[in-house]
């Protein structure tokens, strides 16, 4: 198995690339346009959520409360707009701030009071899930769903130049502001992480905490900032769910998207730009599940279709784990073969110092 991987690694990779490109071509040209558009739209919470997960885990804290941060964003966005008639963008802003506040509280509880991260995350998620429904009832008198004509959803924006291009125009144009903001955020987060002082500090803290302390980085402050930023992104993702797709709040409307976002970030090896494309794929799987549900002639059970994104998530988790594991095994194997070769040479009398030992045959590179 390993020797096979070693010998045909390159060919295998090319094969995978070709399959990927063919799949991409099929997705782009074989699927109906409205399916593609809705998958790009539905990918937005994953784009923002995975960025939230990336920025936190780059700073060395696995943000497991993204689910709760998203939910509070959804709720606050609707709560601000209800009966006030404000611009929907204000709702997005409020959701972002609320998510950021929750992120700060989360960070302070974790870093200053030192609560176990997993228990803290479970408690925060549980609290938000219950508190949103609680306030829905006590403040708005609504049972599980808050919908009102005064809550307007975000308007769609036509991009001025791109909408003229025939195919690309309809693929890239006609979404609401948060979708475009999420695309910009991918670039921004990438820039922050890899091109700024703050990003370098974040990565340093995540890579090696002690080293970061020793060069004088205020680790706690960096982590609090990172978690606040993470919460803001998650809150914005939540606002997209409530006023970007629909214009209402439904109890527990995130439905596991926060957890999926964490998987997306793991799948993308915590890189913003791969995370964007992975999110598109998850958006596609979700859109596909809705699309198939809307076609009763196919006779597919809706509950099982709803499980489709989750099954994709599990497969993604397993895939990324296999990839990591295979990398480790490959490295270990290559080290072992190289070591044996050296040992054999020693046994055959090529003593070190006798003559400069020849460089061992380089096995096919295994990175």
């Amino acid at each position: 198995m390993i020797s096979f991987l070693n010998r045909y690694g390159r060919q295998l990779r090319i094969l995978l690339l070709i399959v990927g490109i063919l799949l991409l071509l099929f997705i782009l040209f074989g699927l109906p346009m409205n399916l593609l558009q809705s998958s790009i739209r539905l990918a937005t919470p994953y784009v923002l959520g995975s960025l939230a997960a990336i920025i936190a885990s780059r700073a060395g804290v696995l943000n497991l409360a993204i689910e709760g941060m998203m939910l509070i964003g959804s709720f606050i966005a609707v709560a601000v707009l209800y009966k006030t008639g404000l611009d929907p963008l204000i709702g997005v802003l409020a959701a972002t701030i609320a998510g950021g506040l929750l992120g700060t509280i989360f960070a302070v509880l974790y870093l200053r009071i030192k609560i176990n991260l997993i228990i803290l995350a479970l408690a925060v998620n549980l609290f938000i899930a219950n508190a949103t429904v609680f306030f829905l009832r006590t403040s708005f008198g609504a049972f599980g769903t808050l919908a009102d004509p005064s809550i307007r959803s975000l308007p769609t924006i036509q991009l001025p130049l791109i909408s003229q291009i025939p195919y690309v125009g309809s693929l890239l144009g006609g979404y609401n502001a948060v979708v475009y903001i999420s695309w910009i955020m991918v670039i921004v987060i990438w820039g922050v992480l890899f091109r700024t002082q703050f990003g370098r500090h974040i990565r340093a803290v995540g890579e090696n905490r002690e080293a970061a302390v020793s060069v004088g980085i205020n680790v706690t402050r960096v982590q609090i900032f990172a978690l606040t930023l993470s919460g803001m992104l998650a809150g914005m993702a939540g606002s997209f769910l409530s006023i970007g797709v629909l214009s209402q709040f439904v109890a527990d409307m995130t439905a596991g998207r926060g957890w999926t976002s964490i998987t997306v970030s793991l799948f993308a090896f915590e890189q913003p730009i791969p995370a964007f494309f992975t999110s598109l794929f998850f958006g596609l799987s979700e859109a596909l599940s809705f699309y198939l549900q809307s076609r009763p002639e196919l006779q597919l059970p809706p509950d099982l279709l709803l499980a489709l994104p989750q099954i994709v998530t599990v497969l993604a988790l397993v895939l990324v784990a296999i990839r990591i594991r295979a990398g480790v095994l490959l490295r270990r194997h290559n080290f072992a073969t190289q070591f044996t070769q050296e040992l054999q040479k020693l046994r055959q009398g090529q003593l070190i110092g006798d003559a400069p030992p020849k460089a061992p045959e380089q096995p096919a590179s295994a990175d």
Partner: protein
Amino acid sequence: MNVIRQTLDRVSIPIIAILLGLAASSFFVALAGANPIDAYQRLFCEGFGPKGCATFGDLIFVQAEQEDGSFQTVFSPTYGAGGNRLALVLEQATPLILTALSAAVAFQVGMFSIGMDGQFVLGGIVAAFLGYWIPDQIYLAAGVTDPETASESLRTIMHLVVPLLCIGASMLVGAIYSWIPGILKIRLNVNELISTIIFNAIAVQLVGYLVNFPLRSDMNNIARTRRIDDTAWLIPFNRGIFADIEWFSGARLGIGLIIALLAAGLVWFFLWRTTAGYEQRMTRGSSLFARFGGIPSARAALRAMLISGALSGLAGALYILGVERRVVDGFATSGTGFEGVLVAILSKESIIGILLVAPFFAGLNLGAINFQFGNLPRQLGGIIIAFIILFSSMEDFIRLQLAKLTNRGRARRRDKTPGEAAV
């Protein structure tokens, strides 16, 4: 004396956490425009109190109306007229105890698996299906057309065998469903928290599908499966052996509780008195250290996951066979398995703690569902639980603050004493 102090020390933090949790949640009650004390009285009375309970005092002693119209003070927990609510609490606590044990076993090996929910609902649906399918097959094989006419001896034998088969199958399914995240963690290092959450979601969707489509029995508004055969039913106390004791009359409390207590004893014995349990606890400390010490940590972790899954499956089976007797749509989303995880967290995985905390949570939920106070929704229960979990995990911080308080007091006294001496 030392033992008492130790127990007090261990109990004090959960109790402080509960009080702080209630205090913090009272802020939300006040925000909703209700008086927290009245609301809590109502909540606890609906959860734990006897009939006619109105104040906290009634939780212990209540003025009960006698048959001749006079009132007499009785001890509430044993007061049985019309069925005691504590029986209902214990009925609801049974699955919580088992899922909490399941979580504790997984936590004790260092696996933060919270897949109890998925295993619970799968166990439930398996028991519900086999509960009528196996008897059907037996009747078919025995040539009985109407189950009512089956011979008494056949029914007795079936009543002994069928529930065992159902429970066994549920435990098996739960164990397998828990084994998958376990093997993914050990072989591929997949984060078990994320994988079990996703597995829960899949199980919930699957059970929802099964109840709505293949196993749906009638065109009832809310989809449900067929009722299990009487021979698969674990008859509750109020219909069986304790039919004359009024204390049990309001609840479907049954043999499930005894099995759960038995399971608690076995889990304790396993964890603290067997080699396998020792291996497990060592693996939690440091899996690498355990491996160097000659402990097969991967095997210990997988074994723990299997036991954990089987316990959750058992919880689902007992709930269906003993309480519900069929799966109704919405069973899958009830979140009983997740409550079990919270119980295990709050009780810090101690078995006795679980046995105490599970009824507390069950009563809190029961009270939250039933209480009608202003427009406070039942989610108040969830908020209280979230705060209690939060405060109980602040253990170190609370201890530090307590120590600071006592130290400051001591220091002040020390400062004073020399001053007074000088005067």
